[in-house]
């Protein structure tokens, strides 16, 4: 089964390479973990971008040119990412895609800023599809960076709104990964809960090493003995899956409010125990109302990459937006595309998406979902899938937060 998947991937790559032969190609470098503990986050994202690119290319490409996505494995290391970034730029990539790990994104933003200052005429643009530290579109904002995922404060707003309505939740435990993202999640949770539900007691606020914990049982037992009614976590990848696996093993039945409960394998680890205990906030799930083309895309994804599920909707939005911006600018040159993208609105699969010009933060609908049976599309090859909770749709306007960004634009 493994080898067939690799073959499908290889076929996808070569298919792009073949079609690319008779048109100019726009190289995009995808820099994310493609091996090791976090590859279950990077690999499906790469596949999503490739599939999205394939569809754009099949529909005439971007102003006639084809997109080529090339994967670079950074092993979630900022240092390794900079090596890969240089490699990508040297091979002619003018667009960089990355998402897993705010520590990595922060290093890339800095490197791209420097590169662009030193190499006028050879600018590169960074499309961030998942690194959610608020600073990137606030105090540390950059003209060269565009974020296609809602940031921590926006997602936490959705979670704390949900908690505020649940009077049975009196004690909350916060657990996260020990780096800038986990810290941002904890800070947002603490400050927002204090504001919306001052009566809630935060019975634990804990950070664990990133991608190193193999057995979360001691952490889960700590959560149990704290008497928490709900857990808030920003964990992703293996840290998400193993955390809920340990919770399931301990028979814990309290809501887990997550950013990335949709991480590959989390639902499978919980089984039916996931129903009404695992929650996530995201830009869309497969079981929302959508167009027939979207359903066809979800099914094509599953058929091509049976190990994973359609999850990274924002990958498709990213390239849709790039396509629209390039068309509007009549060029695929990074600065022209970046300027065209500011304020651009497209019809994404689950509602309109607008790239806010002030801070390059995408404004889109958010959805609070939980696991249910009897759904159109199951995940992790089970019959369980994600379903919208009552009042779980947060419109782009409601999800929006103000920005402190003072953007410096090129002359």
């Amino acid at each position, binding site marked *: 089964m493994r080898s067939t998947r690799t073959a499908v991937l290889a076929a996808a790559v070569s298919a792009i390479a073949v079609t690319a032969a008779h048109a100019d190609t726009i190289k995009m470098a995808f820099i994310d973990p493609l091996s090791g503990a976090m590859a279950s986050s990077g690999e499906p994202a790469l596949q999503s971008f490739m599939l999205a690119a394939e569809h754009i290319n099949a529909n005439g490409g971007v102003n006639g040119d084809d997109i080529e996505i090339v994967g670079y494995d950074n092993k979630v290391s900022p240092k390794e990412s900079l090596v890969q970034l240089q490699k990508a730029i040297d091979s002619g990539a003018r667009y960089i895609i990355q998402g897993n790990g705010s520590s990595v994104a922060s290093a890339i933003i800095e490197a791209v800023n420097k590169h662009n200052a030193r190499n006028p005429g050879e600018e590169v643009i960074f499309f961030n599809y998942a690194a959610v530290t608020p600073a990137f579109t606030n105090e540390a904002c950059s003209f060269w960076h565009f974020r296609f995922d809602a940031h921590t404060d926006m997602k936490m707003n959705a979670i704390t709104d949900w908690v505020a309505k649940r009077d049975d939740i009196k004690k909350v435990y916060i657990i996260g990964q020990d780096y800038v993202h986990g810290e941002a999640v904890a800070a947002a949770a603490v400050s927002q809960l204090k504001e919306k539900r001052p009566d809630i007691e935060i019975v634990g606020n804990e950070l664990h090493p990133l991608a190193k914990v193999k057995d979360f049982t001691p952490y889960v037992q700590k959560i149990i003995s704290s008497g928490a009614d709900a857990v808030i976590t920003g964990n992703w990848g293996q840290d998400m899956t193993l955390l809920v696996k340990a919770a399931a093993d301990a*028979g814990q039945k309290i809501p887990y409010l997550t950013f990335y409960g949709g991480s590959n394998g989390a639902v499978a680890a919980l089984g039916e125990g996931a129903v009404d205990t695992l929650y996530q906030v995201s830009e869309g799930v497969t079981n929302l109302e959508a167009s027939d083309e979207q359903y066809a895309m979800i099914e094509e994804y599953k058929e091509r990459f049976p190990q994973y599920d359609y999850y990274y909707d924002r990958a498709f939005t990213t390239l849709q937006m790039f396509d629209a911006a390039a068309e509007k600018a009549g060029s695929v040159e990074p600065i022209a595309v970046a300027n065209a993208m500011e304020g651009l609105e497209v019809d994404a699969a689950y509602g309109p998406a607008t790239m806010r010009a002030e801070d390059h933060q995408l404004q889109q609908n958010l959805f609070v979902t939980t696991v249910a049976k009897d759904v159109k599309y199951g995940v992790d090859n089970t019959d369980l899938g994600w379903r919208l909770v009552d009042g779980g749709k947060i419109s782009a306007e409601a999800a929006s937060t103000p920005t402190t960004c003072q953007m410096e634009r090129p002359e």
Partner: protein
Amino acid sequence: METVVFAVLNGVIYGLLLFMLSSGLTLIFSMMGVLNFAHASFYMLGAYFAYTLMEGSNFWIALFIAPVLVGLAGMVVERYGLRKVHARGHVAELLFTFGLAYLIDEVVKIFWGRTAVNYKVPELLDFPLFTLYGAQYPAYRIFILLVAILMLVALWYLLRRTRAGLIIQAALTHPHMVGHLGHNVPMIFMMVFGAGCALAGLAGVIGGNYFITDPAMAVQMGPIVFVVVVVGGLGSLEGAFIAAMIIGLLQTSAVSINASLADIFGFLGLAGTSEVGGITIASMAPMLPFLLLVVVLMVRPTGLMGDREV
């Protein structure tokens, strides 16, 4: 109280698993005089073999066959690799095992992919055994405990109570003398190497689904295993056992301690708001085994029970 009970239970299981891994390494070390860098890779192979065997048959068959396969692989490595390199001295041997670890890593990635495989706990054992202080305890963990204890007893019996064990022990310390007595020493070395690898494989079979089976598992487990062997004393099984238990208990119990450095060293004037004072014991858990390593090497260079210097 409940924290202590859980920490002890989880710590003992983790410690026994560590011992299963490092017992083979200790045996091989006493024999070759060189640390086998590829040892954790055999642990990984055990998990992957079991995963593949489980797809075609079931867990119980995998539990017996996978360690045997890993042991055979180990014997082949000793017979056709290490024995040839041995003539060129320790550095060559060390480099050989180092290269082998990378080789196995890459082979695993080619055959099973770069991401984790879904190696599941067998359904028969996938139920909560008992409930303790409101938390269920999975039966599989107790199964690991039993397998590890069984292995411990069997190993002890083999080495201490049988004639084969007597010859192995003699061959470890006085290979030439044993050879002069008419025993086939290279053969004994091959068997010991194979058995050591098989033990690592067994740890992989029962640990792979308890933790996670991915190509990084060897790299992540490797350093801890070396710590166990060095802290316990090179070549001492008893030492390895004690060290494995200490590290298992230390790591799992540290996670459940919420106190920060400021709480402990506050009397020295360390403030909780300072950078150092804010560090909690829980966040130091991954570091503790290595701290132990450094301290033991400084205070007792032979390790806890060893008779040789590192």
